[in-house]
């Protein structure tokens, strides 16, 4: 089967940033905490590929380490959403119409009513700003997304005959949820996970931008943008490169999500 072009392009783009993040563990062009005042605000060139900032830090190195922060925060946050949201969705679907279903889903509505940023401000107000709190905020925000997707997909499966056959075979709701429902909605969760991952990166950038994410000196894309703001007229590269990094990563992940859906959803596969 031929893979859709969106999947290949998206995976390449996203893979580029994952590779940059991984390489940054062993090598960066310059140390991200090395302040070289003599070489500050250099435009992109041979020595500094993407230029330097007002402290003389190498932008390329900061982007590489920043990718690490973004990806780490997004992965953990999406993982948290999956781990909390999917079981909630499965439980709600298995007990459809019951009080438990109502409690779970209305609880989700409640969390959904607050944007990630508001949750982050709340958490920060209590615990102070840090990458961990950004993860918590984005993770909490992701939970109802996965719960809803899971419940919706599971509900349509619960009406199928093979679920009834499993009930005739004496299996309980929990067992059916794990054995029959979960494997059959895995596709959907993978696709949703990819898209939530891109949203997580965007949310992390947004939180860092307003100072609620990773704290200095840990580089992060959102804070690089915020710091570049005052210098945009004479050092535009400081805003352009982190901005591009965010846009391209999110674009890559979204393309990848679309492509994965095409590959994993048999109905769309036939239509193509």
């Amino acid at each position: 089967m031929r893979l859709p072009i969106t999947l290949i392009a998206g995976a390449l783009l996203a893979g580029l940033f994952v590779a940059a993040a991984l390489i940054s563990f062993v090598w960066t062009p310059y140390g991200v905490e090395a302040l070289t005042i003599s070489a500050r605000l250099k435009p992109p060139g041979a020595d500094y590929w993407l230029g330097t900032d007002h402290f003389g830090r190498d932008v390329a190195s900061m982007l590489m380490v920043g990718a690490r922060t973004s990806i780490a925060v997004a992965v953990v946050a999406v993982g948290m959403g999956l781990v909390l949201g999917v079981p909630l969705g499965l439980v709600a679907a298995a007990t459809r119409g019951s009080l438990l279903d109502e409690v779970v889903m209305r609880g989700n509505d409640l969390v959904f009513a607050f944007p990630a940023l508001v949750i982050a401000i709340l958490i920060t107000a209590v615990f102070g700003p840090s990458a961990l709190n950004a993860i918590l905020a984005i993770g909490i925000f992701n939970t109802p997304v996965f719960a809803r997707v899971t419940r919706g997909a599971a509900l349509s499966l619960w009406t199928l005959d093979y679920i009834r056959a499993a009930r005739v075979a004496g299996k309980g709701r929990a067992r059916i949820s794990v054995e029959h429902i979960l494997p059959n909605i895995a596709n959907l969760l993978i696709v949703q996970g990819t898209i939530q991952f891109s949203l997580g990166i965007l949310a992390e950038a947004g939180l860092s931008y307003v100072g609620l994410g990773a704290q200095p000196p840990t580089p992060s894309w959102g804070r690089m943008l915020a710091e570049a703001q005052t210098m945009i007229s004479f050092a535009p590269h400081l805003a352009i490169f982190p901005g591009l990094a965010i846009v391209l990563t999110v674009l890559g992940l979204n393309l990848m999500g679309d492509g994965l859906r095409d590959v994993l959803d048999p109905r769309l596969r036939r239509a193509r």
Partner: protein
Amino acid sequence: MNSRRAAGATSLLSVSGLSLAIGGAPILDDVGFALAPGEVFGLVGESGSGKSMTALALMGLAPRGAVVSGRAAMGGRDLLALPERALCDIRGREIGMIFQEPMTALNPVQTIGDQVAETLVVHGAATRAEARRAARDRLDRVGLTAERFPLGRYPHELSGGQRQRVCIALAVALRPKLLIADEPTTALDVTTQAQILRLLKGLVDEEGMALMLITHDLAVVAGIADHVAVMQAGRVVEAGATEALFRTRAHAYTRALFAASAHRPARRGVGVGEETGAAPAPRGGRRSARVAPEARPRRDGGAVRALPGVPPGKTEEGAGQATPPLLEVVDAVRTYPLPRPAPFAPRGLLPAVAGVSFAVHRGESVGLVGESGCGKSTLTRAILGLDPLQGGAIRLNGRAVGPRMDNALRAAVQVVFQDPYGSFNPRWRVARLVAEPFHLLPAPPPDARDRVAAALEAVGLTPADMDKFIHEFSGGQRQRIAIARALITRPELIVLDEAVSALDVRVRAQVLDLLADLQDRLGLSYLFISHDLAVVRAITDRVLVMRAGRIVEAGATEAVFAAPQDAYTRELLAATPVIPAGWMGGDDGRVVV
């Protein structure tokens, strides 16, 4: 209903050499037929034979990538050569079409009046106001009167049969010359089917429209069509005037199709207490020949012979010598709350099952017949122990059945569902699918794989099929796998919930044979739930007729079919399409229903 006019003489539509291929695979091969105005043309065949594709090709609606060749002359034009713009004009105006599934053929957010009127406006035939008047007129014509069905009704407020009427009104809104009906009654109950067929016939007779009726049901065609073409694998294998074709059956495939639709599996006699079926069959051969005379004097309290017939009065224990029944349903009641008519008004209650009593004895096959909404699905779920009852009791081997029954009891009753495509987890291999009911045993048996292999062999598959996925099997094979799954715990009762309804006639005949054979060999009892009277007649000893949550008639199958006592049973039987008895002569005199 003989042909009124020789097709082709004053032909309305003349198709010749119609071929269609998708991605190099031939779907239709040199299909040809002709229709005259005011004629009903039946196109019959099994699923995948290309009946629907023929209609879609004529309408210019063949799937993208399809390569179509041939000629379809209508009014001096070749439909197959016309550009999309011209076809748009023809669709609706000259050719109307209705589909199988009335539940999804209408737009749920538009009123029925708007949908009918829209057709007229789109074709520039009328202004809004005129269109609404015309829509009213057309809805009246299809039997949806203004008092009960104002134009402002939404599709969800209508039943399946009423929606199909709206679809017909849509299709004939512009008084097309040709109406193509693709399995228009397959999704409907028999009594509704009879009404819809009568309506279609009336439209043909009164408006001079030609009707192309696509169906798998030979009996439907027999009752309405002037001409018939039989399709197999994309070709028309036999065509001609209906009666002549039914009488002669020149082509081997046609003969096979007819034989399958009239097929009755050979079943051995059933004796109460006969556990294994190992005893030599005292009265072999076809039931039709022997049950009727024996069972007819039902009023003698069922003591005629051991066949445990339930007299209509529901007094079950007439035959005192019988062993206790395997399954006993006593005054089962299940109601569902209806939506409140007003915010604080009391909820109404829908009695889905309202005091049903019957019994199934060992080795017996009992049919439960009724139309959609009669409560048979609710009753089935209760018997399977999936849903609780609100009143009465269900006992299996004397023990109470319900959602909390233990696994050992559950293992004694298994089920085969209707849909061969929805009955299996697509991500499991066959071995795991068939072995799923082993969950009911305290521990998986050590010879689990051998037992799965044996079950697969029992249903006519091979042990090598164990490692395949379900999508590698056809509908009939899947139903065999479903039966294997039901057999794996060695149950005493198998509930067959419309188990052969989705299958083609030839496959259905094979599966019925298999069921009869398994019953003989394993001493199984069947509760056969179906809306298809022909199938129930072929495979059951006793039949229960259910309507609105109650059993209105019960008795030995042949007796009920031969001399129905209840008005509703008579109505059901009268509505069932039949092939006239004389037409089927030559095949040892058997008839469909």
